[in-house]
């Protein structure tokens, strides 16, 4: 297998295991490129990529932009503030206008679930979903899987736990299909109000008790409480959430197991994760960020060369 089965990267649920293996293998090569004195290859020098961020982002946006520059692509950046969106232009019109200026690929973040999927049905260019509402964040899922593989060898047979706001999490939306496809077991843990009703139909189990869930897992991905996506109160207070579902050193020490801790960022320190865990050797949060660039280079490279 030497080509992706998909033209776009809309969600990990559409990828085959062989696609994921190919992305990981290609990311290994780019990780080596990033260690060189000159961290740049000319592969995409004839490609122009538009980064459309209709929703705020620091990490993902910088990571994509760096990945594009390391591949020598030309990039343009767009954010909805200060744009004609404010004048009432539709998403499709905005994108068609950008593509009319000979842009080859689109990286898009949008607050509406399915926005990338909608675009892919209406335009020719390759689309990479950089997070759509509460649906998927495929490059985050890939870099999570890649970072775990790097730390623990392989994903097959691992017990992968996701803690927190599963309902609003596009990271969980991508981590779950990735881990299941790669042969890991997945459990979610969090207050019942933040767990999707039919989660078990995905092949995922639910455990309301954090300590029991930690005793089960090898890797725990701690999600951020996304207050901006909660239009009603799903939890009584942040303090109560932290008390029942926050990860701290004492709790981790009481579980007699070496658990790898992940977080997609940005961390609410003291809410879902305490500093004495986030900054410890058990955490691979910064490795996740580092691997993000190599993973995004791999995705861009494989999609750009697919034609």
């Amino acid at each position, binding site marked *: 297998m*030497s080509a992706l089965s998909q033209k776009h990267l809309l969600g990990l649920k559409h990828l085959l295991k062989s696609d994921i293996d190919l992305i990981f293998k290609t990311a290994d*090569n780019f990780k*080596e490129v990033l260690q060189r004195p000159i961290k740049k290859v000319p*592969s995409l020098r*004839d490609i122009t990529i538009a980064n459309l961020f209709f929703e705020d982002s620091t990490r993902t946006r910088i990571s994509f932009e760096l990945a594009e520059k390391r591949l020598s692509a030309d990039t343009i950046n767009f954010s909805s503030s200060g744009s004609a969106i404010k004048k009432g232009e539709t998403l499709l019109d905005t994108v068609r206008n950008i593509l009319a200026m000979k842009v080859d690929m689109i990286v898009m973040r949008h607050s509406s679930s399915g926005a990338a999927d909608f675009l892919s049905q209406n335009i020719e260019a390759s689309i990479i979903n950089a997070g759509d509402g509460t649906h998927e964040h495929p490059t985050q899922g890939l870099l999570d899987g890649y970072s775990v593989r790097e730390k623990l060898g392989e994903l097959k047979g691992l017990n992968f736990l996701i803690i927190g706001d599963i309902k609003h999490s596009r990271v969980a939306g991508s981590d779950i299909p990735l881990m299941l496809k790669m042969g890991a077991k997945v459990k979610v843990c969090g207050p019942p109000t933040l767990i999707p009703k039919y989660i078990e139909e995905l092949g995922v189990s639910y455990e309301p008790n954090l300590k029991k869930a930690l005793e089960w897992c090898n890797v725990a991905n701690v999600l951020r409480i996304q207050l901006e996506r909660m239009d009603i109160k799903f939890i009584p207070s942040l303090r109560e959430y932290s008390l029942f579902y926050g990860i701290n050193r004492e709790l981790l020490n009481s579980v007699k197991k070496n658990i790898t801790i992940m977080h997609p960022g940005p961390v609410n320190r003291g809410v879902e994760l305490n500093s004495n865990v986030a900054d410890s050797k058990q955490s691979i949060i910064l490795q996740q960020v580092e691997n993000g660039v190599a993973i995004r280079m791999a995705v861009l490279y494989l999609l750009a*060369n697919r034609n």
Partner: protein
Amino acid sequence: MQPRVILDSKKLNITLTRLCHQLIEQHKDFSESAIIGVQPRGVFLADRIYKKLAQILNTKNILYGKLDITFYRDDFRLKSKPMIADKTDITFSLEGKNIILIDDVLYTGRTIRSALDAILDFGRPADVELLVLIDRRLHRHLPIQAKYVGQTIDSITSEKVKVDWKETDGADKVWMTEGKD
């Protein structure tokens, strides 16, 4: 056309020994030199050259790296599928070094053009020389020449030159055939 053997195992070994002595003549004890094999097929030749040099000079201190040039190629968008890279393994700086670039067959010169670009991303070498086992001298697309050549052959485009190694193909052999395989 029947496949024609250009070098059998015995002749190949003699050629490799000669190439090694030519290298030693130029590079003395290799203290300022580094061997770089081009992935994927050039690495088999580079492995042999490296081992032979280490044996003749009785040292383990020769710098040896492997270079993949996939991301530097000029034809990747012309192929129907993305080209998948091999491992690049260069753990030392190439700054100021005398580089011996090694590939099995020199044909159009485009691979070596890409390799020269790739090498510069690891530092600025003092100079770069090229060693190849087979030089198909009539097919060059670029002004690139090897300094050390195992054997020069005249061939036509439809002919293919294959280099087999004991490690992967069962026997050491260089042979020529018509058409695709």
